[in-house]
């Protein structure tokens, strides 16, 4: 995984469209699945700059395993070292849950429970 980009969803402003730029193509988060898309015009999107910190900490980043919740929060185990989470954060003053990306690091220590939670979720298959 080289980069992650996102943009505000055109239909629901609280949601975001998320793209993973990998050596095997561009993967789009499609709620229940990850699909390869032709898009490579990332200039109009926002880049998740914190990826650089993880690259410098862990080297090359590999998507090992992807799982999701019943309501399409999606979690990526990256290089066996950390988890990239795409989550719908319940909100009562906005029109919808607000969708966010966050990094869960230190999964061998303080965030060990997050791995247990991750392993209980449904697997999402990566495209061939």
């Amino acid at each position, binding site marked *: 995984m080289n980069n992650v980009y996102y943009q505000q969803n055109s239909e629901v402003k609280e949601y975001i469209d998320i793209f993973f730029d990998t050596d095997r193509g561009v993967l789009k988060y499609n*709620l229940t699945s990850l699909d390869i898309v032709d898009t490579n015009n990332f200039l109009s999107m926002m880049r998740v700059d914190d990826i650089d910190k993880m690259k410098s900490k862990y080297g090359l980043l590999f998507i090992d395993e992807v799982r999701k919740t019943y309501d399409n929060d999606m979690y990526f185990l990256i290089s066996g070292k950390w988890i990239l989470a795409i989550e719908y954060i319940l909100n009562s*003053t906005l029109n919808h849950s*607000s969708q966010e990306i966050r990094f869960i690091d230190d999964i061998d220590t303080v965030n060990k429970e997050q791995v247990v939670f991750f392993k209980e979720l449904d697997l999402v298959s990566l495209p061939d």
Partner: protein
Amino acid sequence: MKGEGNQVAFEKRIYDPRLGRFLSGDPLEKSYPWQSTYVFAGDNPIKFIDVLGMGPGDPVPIYHRTSSQNAASISQSGFDPSKSNRNGFTFFSTTEKIGSIGSSAASGNTVINATIDLTNVKDITARQMSDWYNEGLSVANKQLKTNYSSMADVPEASRVKYQSIADGVRNTKLADFMKADGGSVYRISSKSTIAVAEQAISQVKITGLSGSGAAEAISMMARPSLNGESAAALRQYGKATTAMQWGGRTCIAVAVASDIFEIYQSDNVTRTITKKVGGWMGASIGASAGAAYGAAGGTIVPGPGNVFGGIGGGIIGGIIGYISGELVTEKVYDFLFQRGVSAK
């Protein structure tokens, strides 16, 4: 024996997991006269959360993300669930989710930091939330005249629409459940979320703002005016007039508002206002000097109403100035008022 893992340091005292007890008494023991002050989480760790080691229901930090405009209104007038989109309750996250990305795109760039006592919290299971979500999918099917049995069956191009309907229905179902159940505070296990019903919203204590929209929210708040006493004291000190002429009245007033929580909670409101205004006068002066090192016209807060734009590169100077200004004016206040010196 002390040994590794045999002592857990909570913020306020030490817990011994072998004994299931704290090693010292509860700092809030007067609040809980019915129980030993050495027990952990009211002797019911499944029900209660003891975060700080201060009682069976410590005030637990919670966070509510919203727009800067809403944050300004909530900070000044409190939460009003009856005005929210999910009538009757307010959602809070139990994790701050520092570094989360994407929320600013949702006009939710400001986070209201608060606390709540979870002593009487009730639980909503992931299974319950899942059932409500699936009911939402059924509602979406009805609205859109389809018959998908799961979100995965929905064509990619339509999934966001179905997701948003299911999301909304789930929350409405939750609101209905809370009203029927009669509880006040619910913990939603799978989402790190607390839902607080309207009748219990006064239990939520706002402690501050954070997030990229916090400064903008502060600028939208009504500005407390200085009373004659503290204004006179500042004039006497000499720098007030200069700072106001240089920095502009807005800068100082906004700065006062940013410290509004401390001012409200202060035992000596006048002294605290004096201290805060002095701090920000110092910041203005410090920023003026620091700006020489920064790029001209830089901004800290984007968007309309940016009162800091002119300060530009003077952020560091401002911070230094703030600290020194705050200390100086606090001492001036003490001199003028505590020692009976007339400010007029």
